[in-house]
């Protein structure tokens, strides 16, 4: 599976959060850093 590389543009994504509000990576551009945590699953 392809991995992302350091110091390259992060792939854009848009998904609804668990309340149905759309979240895009680009929502934060020029405003905030983003820490994306890929969880191993809660259960």
């Amino acid at each position: 599976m392809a991995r992302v590389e350091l110091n390259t543009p992060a792939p854009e994504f848009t998904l609804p959060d668990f309340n149905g509000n759309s979240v895009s990576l680009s929502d934060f551009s020029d405003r905030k850093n983003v820490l994306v945590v890929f969880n191993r699953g809660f259960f």
Partner: protein
Amino acid sequence: MAQLRQNYKRFIKLNTEIIVVGPEGAEPFKEFWVDEKLPFIGLPDPDHKILKLYGQEVNLFKLGRLPAQMLIDKSGMLRYVHYGHSMTDIPSNKEIMDLLKQHMTTRSPG
């Protein structure tokens, strides 16, 4: 997760939002967030769209996903990429926050 919750305010001070992506659907996500009182953004990704885009790996032997962390700066560039080699291979918040402090906080001039 508990560790991230504890440090959430410090991440916010470092102008950093936290997005947690997981393979569960919206309902279990929501229940978990409410139960654990988590302050950050939770993105259910049952179709594995983001997970595949960022190449999170599945450990076939343990039938689970391996944890991964990415830090993206304001210009959309990946500044930290960590793919866990095991279920417990997760960098400390301190490691990530130190990186933020050193390279990614914009200080007002003067």
